[in-house]
């Protein structure tokens, strides 16, 4: 095998192996619990209906944005666990802005998007600032900020809520002309793909371009790889930490928007939560790569959608796929780590072979 093929085989092989492992482990859990392994997989791996396909794409769109937000942090070696809180605060702000309808039509939508990005960035920025000024680990601070976001949004929601006649406390409804129309993918079902699927694609492209093509992206990746080397090369690490937290939070601000403008049209107590944690899992699964993340998002959405009917069809709790999803995260990172070590060893062997000269001993251990 040429080095290039080896690399490709390893890059593809690792996640595939990890998925298989996750399926095996889930099956073992099912076996231990006395549920029918075959029935569960038959249901989950069945061909999705048209309706399910649309739902999968929609769920994946939201997951994708969340995972990109997390990945921005990851590339910088920052662990933004706070995407969850960031998107909820931001979605709430966007819902309020959009509901007020200060501007006409799509200008209103745009204003709401801007508000979401700003608020998401600000909420993440608190963690960034605490990290650079007070040395507080972003892991802990973003977890705390998630909880604070929950309380804050609940409080503010009560203040601005309108009575819609039902039990749901929610913001004012987004005016018709500011909503983002969906795409009719299949004629035989009424559900449509969120128009904001294009926003997600755009965000993915910008993410890829900025990180791999620009000087700024180089600085960001360099800082993530080695903070000490970044400092010595003239990068202001503190600035990078704040900026990347702002960017990550800004992207997180977008997470709830497809739901807001394509489905819910208001922010209420039933607005989907927990997307931030799924984002972490998907970013890890996709190795922070825009395409990899897209595949990961689709996979997670697929598992979610296909498990919905487990309870009815085979009488198994659909929560079983949450186990699968969690296990995937672990097996995937383990597989990547094993492959990484193997690759380093392989490269060292190649270097030694190419030069026919023993490398120094220190290097051999690395």
């Amino acid at each position, binding site marked *: 095998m040429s080095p290039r093929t080896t690399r490709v085989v390893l890059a593809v092989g690792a996640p595939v192996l990890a998925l298989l492992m996750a399926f095996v482990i889930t099956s073992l*859990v099912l076996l231990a*619990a006395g*549920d029918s392994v075959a029935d569960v997989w038959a249901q989950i791996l069945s061909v999705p209906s048209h309706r399910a396909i649309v739902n999968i794409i929609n769920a994946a769109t939201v997951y994708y944005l969340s995972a990109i937000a997390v990945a921005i942090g990851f590339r910088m070696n920052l*662990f933004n*666990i706070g995407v969850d809180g960031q998107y909820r605060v931001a979605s709430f702000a966007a819902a309020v802005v959009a509901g007020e309808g200060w501007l006409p039509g799509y200008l209103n939508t745009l204003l709401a998007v801007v508000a979401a990005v700003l608020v998401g960035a600000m909420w993440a920025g608190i963690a960034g600032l*605490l990290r650079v000024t*007070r*040395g*507080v680990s972003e*892991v*802990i*601070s973003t*977890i*705390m*900020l998630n*909880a*604070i976001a*929950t*309380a*804050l949004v*609940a*409080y503010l929601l*009560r203040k601005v809520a309108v009575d819609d006649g039902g039990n749901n406390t929610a913001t004012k409804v987004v005016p018709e002309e500011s909503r983002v129309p969906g795409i009719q993918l299949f004629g035989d079902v009424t559900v449509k793909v969120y128009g904001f699927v294009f926003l997600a694609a755009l965000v993915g492209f910008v993410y890829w371009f900025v990180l791999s093509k620009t000087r700024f992206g180089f600085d960001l990746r360099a800082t993530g790889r080695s903070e000490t080397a970044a400092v010595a090369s003239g990068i202001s690490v503190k600035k990078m930490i704040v900026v990347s937290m702002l960017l990550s939070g800004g992207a997180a601000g977008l997470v709830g928007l497809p739901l807001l403008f394509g489905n819910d049209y208001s922010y209420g107590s039933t607005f989907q939560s927990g997307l931030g*944690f799924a984002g*972490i*899992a998907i970013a*890890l699964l996709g190795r922070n790569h825009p395409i990899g993340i897209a595949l990961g998002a689709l996979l997670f959405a697929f598992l979610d959608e296909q498990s919905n009917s487990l309870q009815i069809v085979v009488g198994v*709790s659909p*929560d*079983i*796929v*949450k*186990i699968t*999803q*969690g*296990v995937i*995260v*672990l097996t995937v*990172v*383990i597989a990547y*780590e*094993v492959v990484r070590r193997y690759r380093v060893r392989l490269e060292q062997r190649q270097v030694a072979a190419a030069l026919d000269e023993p490398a120094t001993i220190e290097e051999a*251990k690395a």
Partner: protein
Amino acid sequence: MSLVTAPRLAGKRRVTPGRVLLVVVALTVLLSLLRVLTGADDLASSGTLRATLVAAVPIGLAGLAGLWSERAGIVNIGLEGMMILGTFGAGYFGYFYGPWQGVLGAILFGALGGLIHAVATVTFGVDHIVSGVAINIIAAGAVQYLAALTFTGVRGGGQTQSPPIDALPAISIDALSDPLGELEAKNWFFVSDGAAVLRALVTNLSVLTLIAILLFVLTWFVLWRTSFGLRLRSVGESPASSESLGVNVIRYKFVAVLISGGIAGLAGGFLALVASSTFREGQTGGRGYIGLAAMIFGNWRPGGLLAGAGLFGYTDTLRLRGGGESIHGLLLLVAVLLVGLAVWQWRKAARTAAIVSGVMGVLVALWFLLSDSIPEDLTGMTPYVTTLLVLALASQRLRPPAAAGQTYRKGSAG
């Protein structure tokens, strides 16, 4: 490495019974002052304090679990997940076999989470935080799945909760409790508050609370007074040194994480068995994270952790006791502390920091003066805001184990 050695910044402070007593007295005086000044009587009632104890134990145990793991160099953000597993373990074994079996079940299930974390981080070298997050996801999913499997259709239970579990024994010393109650009712400055503190300790104290307190003492003894503890701490400070001296680094890390999981499971079990006497989904409510924060607050030492757990438990309790007013009272304390800090920082020539603290202090004071109560929704964030504030103000003085969060591979010595 330096030839020129700095004078030690802080001398070693030993925990002696006298010191502990002094701290307890000082806190009581403080609470008492605050109660008198703000008129929020619930701030120091024995009811509040007893509830504080119940709220503090799971946080403290979670922190203790974190302590075991981090002292061995493994960051454990999966505490939340291990606690979740613990709640189910307690619910399952508690309901089907009895409360003591529930305690064991909680420990067992938590340790199972610890096992996953240990395999991922120690054996495979996975990033500790990634593994922790994954465990939280897996645990939440697994418990939902298992709960639906186990409790659906059981009388008094349901998809997301177990039927009531028999209570563990509790200890009350009525001979002390009643007179102390009378004393407390008099609302005398300090005396009544002191009585409230004592009364909380002798009334309806669950054995599990007692066990938790013993675990703290045991942890301190094992980690700081035995060779097992010395080795365990050494693999968190400098694993290469440990290995070069023949210590089996991998084994100690593994054991530490297993113990950590077991204690975290117990923390979850406490929630199910003592705090509410039934397993419910989502019962942990982020207490694993708060426990982690309490451990950091306590500078990775059991005594400090205890103080942190007490503080977080206390604020949480005030919230639960409809404490809009009580927490409002606490604002005054926060304002005074912040202004005090500002003065101290100013004298240390940290001008910017002093101004920031000062302005924050004045704002909090204004808030206290211009309002009567804190909205109910906002009281929910008290423990989290407290954590953030404490970390923001104190993180530079903290000393985590030197190798915490690093992956260790065998053969790295030298």
